[in-house]
């Protein structure tokens, strides 16, 4: 992203389709979901409920969380039937 006000798109238009994927929304987060894989049954309820599609899967298994986009809303932790997602305080680096 440009660092000068002269370079931003006039009117805040978005001229590149599907570009939301490149926008880091993770900067808003105050706490992050951490998955306890020892108790996770890969039911994918977190994947269904996540508003930002942050749960990464591979061959039908939950394998990670995309913290670039995760805003820390905590819906996954509430909805997880096994209570194996905990929200942990995000400390600024």
């Amino acid at each position: 992203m440009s660092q000068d006000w002269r370079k931003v798109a006039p009117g805040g238009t978005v001229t590149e389709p599907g570009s939301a994927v490149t926008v880091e929304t993770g900067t808003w987060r105050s706490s992050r979901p951490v998955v306890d894989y020892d108790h996770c049954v890969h039911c994918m309820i977190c994947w269904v409920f996540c508003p930002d599609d942050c749960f990464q899967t591979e061959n039908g298994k939950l394998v990670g969380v995309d913290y670039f986009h995760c805003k820390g809303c905590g819906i996954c932790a509430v909805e997880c039937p096994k209570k194996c997602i905990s929200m942990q305080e995000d400390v600024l680096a």
Partner: protein
Amino acid sequence: MTLKASERRRARSATGRAVAINGATLVAHAMRQIHPDVVACYPITPQTIITETFSEFVANGLVQTEFVAVESEHAAMSVCIGSAAAGARTQTATSGPGLALMWELLWVASGSRLPIVMHLCTRALSAPLNILCDHSDVMGARDTGWPILFSEDGQEAYDNAIQAVRVAEHPDVLLPVISTQDGFTITHGIERAEILDDASVRSFVGEYSPHRPLLDVEHPTTYGAWDYHDFYFEHKRQQADAMEKALGVIEAVGQEFGKLSGRSYGLVQPYRLDDAEFAVVVLGSAAGTLRSVVDDLRSRGVKAGMLRVRVLRPFPTKAVAEALAGVKVAAVLDRALAFGAPGGPLFEDVCVALTTNGVGPRLVNYVYGLGGRDTLPAQFLQAFEDIRRIAKGASAQPVVRYLGLRES
């Protein structure tokens, strides 16, 4: 489409020659000649003539504009925003409370950089209920990011309506523009005016080439996206820059229009100001009355002058300071009250223009003509008498004074 003989006569009678006509009908003709792709408006006094006349032009096939008869001004501006984003040349017209109802959307239009043109017939705001002229409505839109043009008479309202299109659509500007005429005084007052021929107007405004239109499917664009703390500030700074650039564009378009029509207005219009010691500063139709007051005073040996501000936004700070630099005392006339402010809106702008340019006639502020109160020469003569007394040492307090008010 075949026109009826009466329709042909009507179109012919209003092109390429002088006619006796009111300001609102003139602007409806300007809109017919500009031939916007979309017009969305709601009739409201004193703008009603524009909506009625233009929709008649559409119904009679004199113009192929898509006319959207909306249910409110909030809807009118919303339609304009959608239409302009789609890539259509878009216009609307309103007055007083109608403009107030659009207020939220005025920011969306300017923030999205959509070159909509609005014809505003100025009107007081309720309460108490009033449909007559003052500038309370336009002052509410003063800081919404729309360049704002004022006209002195119907001819200039017509001329400004045409120029507004070019200003709005200029690639350095891309902002919606408000072109005003004083309610009733200009909208309903019949005066002599010259209407250009249709082809000249069409060629002056030119073919519209929209910036990032939604309907250009080869270049998909999103309007109105989320813009949080990260970039909102940068977009606002860009709008401020476009507004600054609009000043030069308004001047250049005005000069080009002058070549076409023989009528050019500049950013400000000084009248007998060169050697003036006393001056008034004014917006809109009262300038006509003031010219005769200045002439009257001049014939009696008083060095009086007037400065009419044609462009309220972007405010022509430098031009105003230069025009008033040699004046001893000036009275700034506001046709709106800014409750609780140090002075009226025009007064404050003139104060800043003078202070920041290091020149300084003594200033007082007069509020006049609220809610359609007649603006008579005697009132303005009184203002001149007051400032002449101030030049001789009388107090300049209170700073804010009232003309034509019942006061014993």
